[in-house]
């Protein structure tokens, strides 16, 4: 068993950011990201201000800078794409360190890099200060289709169960002397995946039976309703509203 996936991203704490209702934080993060992507890329200083804003949030949430930076590493595959752009893009070129780079490619790379990093950082902050369970309640509150929320919540509940099942199957395979070592063994792995699918499907039926037995009639009862006061909304709005001010300055200056 051990700790589930549910808890790896979350960093427990009692900061004001942790205490905000999940749907306020979701809305604030979404608003912030929208503002960031609609900022003109030429307003380089604006992105610096955004980064400062996020650093401020991290400080209030008492998320150490090291942790935040480490988690930003997830972005690397996208960065690799951005780094390629100055080399492959067309148009006017400049010489940097003896390499010929495209000017529009450089701007493109900067655009992807800056906006991507800020978006990822905002999401990392959200995930570190909000429990996965609370996020689902927030999404439910923000009127995301209930079916999607149900699917996500079953994913959290059964991720570990299915992971354990997969591990047991792998132990059973290896106990009979099988090591997957090359393309010839892909067939066996494919059959494992198929068996896992059938087992999960059958479990789904049994779970449904248990749900129906306890009165399930197509919709999940709302047990915990996330509620937010006007003050909490206002507090959460500080981030996207300040960002919006920066963005408007970016367009006008």
């Amino acid at each position, binding site marked *: 068993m051990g700790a589930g996936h549910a808890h790896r991203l979350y960093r427990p704490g009692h900061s004001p950011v942790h205490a905000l209702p999940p749907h306020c934080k979701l809305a604030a993060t979404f608003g912030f990201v929208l503002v960031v992507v609609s900022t003109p890329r030429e307003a380089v200083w604006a992105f610096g201000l955004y980064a400062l804003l996020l650093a401020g949030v991290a400080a209030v949430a008492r998320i150490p800078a090291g942790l935040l930076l480490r988690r930003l590493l997830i972005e690397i595959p996208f960065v690799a794409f951005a780094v390629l752009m100055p080399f492959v893009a067309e148009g006017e070129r400049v010489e940097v360190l003896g390499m010929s780079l495209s000017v529009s490619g450089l701007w493109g790379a900067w655009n992807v890099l800056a906006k991507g990093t800020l978006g990822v950082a905002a999401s990392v902050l959200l995930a570190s200060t909000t429990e996965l369970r609370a996020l689902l309640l927030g999404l439910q509150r923000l009127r995301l289709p209930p079916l999607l929320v149900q699917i996500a919540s079953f994913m959290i509940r059964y991720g570990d169960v299915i992971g354990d099942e997969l591990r047991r199957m792998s132990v059973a395979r290896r106990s009979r002397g099988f090591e997957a070592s090359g393309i010839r063994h892909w067939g066996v792995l494919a059959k494992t995946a198929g068996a896992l699918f059938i087992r999960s499907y059958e479990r789904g039926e049994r779970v449904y039976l248990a749900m129906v037995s306890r009165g399930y009639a197509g919709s999940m009862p709302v047990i*915990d309703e996330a509620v937010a006061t006007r003050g909490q909304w206002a507090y959460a709005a500080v981030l996207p509203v300040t960002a919006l001010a920066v963005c408007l300055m970016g367009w006008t200056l």
Partner: protein
Amino acid sequence: MTATPALTPSLEVAGLAYAYPDGHQALYGVDLSVGRGERVALLGPNGAGKTTLVLHLNGILAGGVGSVAVAGLPVEKRNLAEIRRRVGIVFQDPDDQLFMPTVREDVAFGPAAAGMRGAELEERVGAALDQVGMADFADRPPHHLSFGQRRRVAVATVLAMRPEILVLDEPSSNLDPASRRELADILRSLDVTVLMVTHDLPYALELCPRSVILSEGVIAADGRTQDLLCDEKLMRAHRLELPFGFDPRSVSVA
């Protein structure tokens, strides 16, 4: 149907026969009556139709011949919501039974589905978890509990609906001896009718004064658990075997 409410049995099954859509006939006319507050063990070999019978009790399977009534209320389509509140089935694998992200929400699911909210719901959940001694685990995710704890929470999920009859499918399976005893203590402490499907004959003897044997789709025997377990001919005829070294005659049952 002239009996007074106090004498209405918790469960009344009459002439129940059922064949699966693929033609396999599982039940051939089952008659069973369980009085209020009784604890009855349902014994029988694999494939005797025990699960099929259980799924008829809350109307998940239907469409055969015969009738089922729970505390006088017939199991019919228009009564299903009330029937499912009255019949609490605890399935064998607690991972199937516990499908919500936290223990508290799982226990709340049944009453909440029936429309209960707020303080009343909290109180109901707390009481059910207290009954199984799991009140301290309310905010844990089910997959972080031990198997025995999960089984107990599974019992709490149906207790929260204040059922007329508790139906347990193999309650002692996969439990270590200590968890097995703890569950027995809990079941004994409950003031509710219990129908327990089991292969664990000593457990049946410990908990249920009365047993019925379901074999080849009919009730083959119905009587005191100790009498049935001591009847070697009957036991052999229905593929029931006691664990090595266990002598039901040597146990004194209250």
